């Protein structure tokens, strides 16, 4: 199994601890005087999202995590199961609602997403940064109000609720930033 030595430690490294995949989100080198060099790391569990502190001595190593990023198309949702297909291998993957997390809000049929595989099994999925969604329901806005600073909730085709400006109407298409969940603009058909 491949592993990383402390001299290779850096932000963004994907490692495996106690069987779980982790992302190194911080790595600080400290060395007192003529003493032992220490690498103080923060690691985020890629399955649970929890962050742990670990300290390593120079010369220590951590097992590399077998993490692969693939592009996968969203096929359909069945209850709490989301089904995707790897665009290159045509292999199908099922993700739980917990694994899909916030991404469910943006998933439309045939949407191409980026999926992380750990030991060949899917662990998370990210939709494109910008997606276009149809508004299914929203309270009517005040006529002529084109200000974007007055917002109201709207329900989009995926069932998610997004905050949009008052002028957005039922049937409109809106562009949303999936990283922040924020409305960007109205889109013409």
């Amino acid at each position, binding site marked *: 199994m491949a592993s990383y030595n402390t001299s290779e430690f850096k932000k963004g490294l994907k490692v495996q601890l106690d069987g779980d995949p982790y992302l190194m989100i911080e790595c600080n080198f400290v060395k007192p*005087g*003529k003493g032992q*060099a220490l690498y*103080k790391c923060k690691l985020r569990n890629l399955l649970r999202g929890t962050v742990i*502190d670990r*300290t390593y*001595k120079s010369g220590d190593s951590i097992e590399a995590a077998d993490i692969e990023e693939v592009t996968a198309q969203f096929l359909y949702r069945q209850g709490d199961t989301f089904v995707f297909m790897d665009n290159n291998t045509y292999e199908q993957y099922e993700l739980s609602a917990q694994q899909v997390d916030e991404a469910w809000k943006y998933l439309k049929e045939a949407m191409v997403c980026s999926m992380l595989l750990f030991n060949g099994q899917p662990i998370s999925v990210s939709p494109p940064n910008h997606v276009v969604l149809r508004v299914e329901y929203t309270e009517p806005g005040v006529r002529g109000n084109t200000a974007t600073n007055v917002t109201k909730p709207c329900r989009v085709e995926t069932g998610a609720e997004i905050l949009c400006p008052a002028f957005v109407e039922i049937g409109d298409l809106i562009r949303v930033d999936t990283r922040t969940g924020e409305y960007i603009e109205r889109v013409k058909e």
Partner: protein
Amino acid sequence: MSDASTRGPFGPSASWDVLRKRAALLHAVREFFENRGFLEVETPALSADTVVDRHLDPFCVEVEPADALGSARRYWLQTSPEFCMKRLLAAGATAIYQICHAFRRQERGPLHNPEFTLVEWYRAGDSMQQGMQLLDDLCQALLARGPAEQLSYSQVFRQYVGVDPLAADDAALCQAARRWAIAVPSSLAPDDRDGWLDLLLAERVQPHLGRGRPVIVYDYPPSQAALARVRPGPPPVAERFELYVDGIELANGYHELLSAEELRDRIRRNNLWRQRDGKEPLPEESRLLWAMEAGLPPCTGCALGFDRLVMVATGAATLDQVLAFPFERA
């Protein structure tokens, strides 16, 4: 001059303001030592001899000519100018200083760059107390933060960790780390006493030192004597001292070890630790040992990390902000 750091991929990482302050501090260092009758010296950065320390890894350079078997001779980039400067003392120097680059492998972080600038000085006849006073005077001249507070290693450990580092057994040190909820490297062996002391120092002590007033820590555990002499005690302590400002270690000094025999012994022990740590042992013979056998005068020496001094003087958050070209741009 425009702001240096905006010059794209070829430009420096420090601003011109900082680089000008750096130049002024270099000048102030020279003035300080000239005024006290110190002789500025230069010694080789590339040497056939190297310091043998458990935690210092020198860069090795293969040089011509090859030996009879055809393998190139190995030289070392200095981790400090200590060996050569002590050879000058053994040859009659009384007060010398040097501003030079030193090199240490695998030391990279906000406070570390594999190549860095050291100011190092020695004065024959100085006790540890006199060496600490000289360091304090230099610190006041360069940083104007007032006189340093002098605290023993034992005092700072008792204050911030709650254990006596000279008396506590190994188990008590492990317990202290647990009590402070410190993330302990799983590879740290229970009997690696200095490893535990270093961990506690880095996590619990250093960050507090030199906030407000500079602090000089002195009287280290004998196991951390490096090249300092050990005062018999009881308890025995190494006559070593370190300067801290704003939680940053700036300087390290020794009332110097004079016995070649004792140094040989420490070098052997360091090489045993290096092997245990999976590191290459380093050559044990050196011209420093010959100089010590001929007679090194009693003296105190000290080395100051000049880049860190510039950091503290300018309020910079990282070494990169005070270096023209840090390692990745070198």
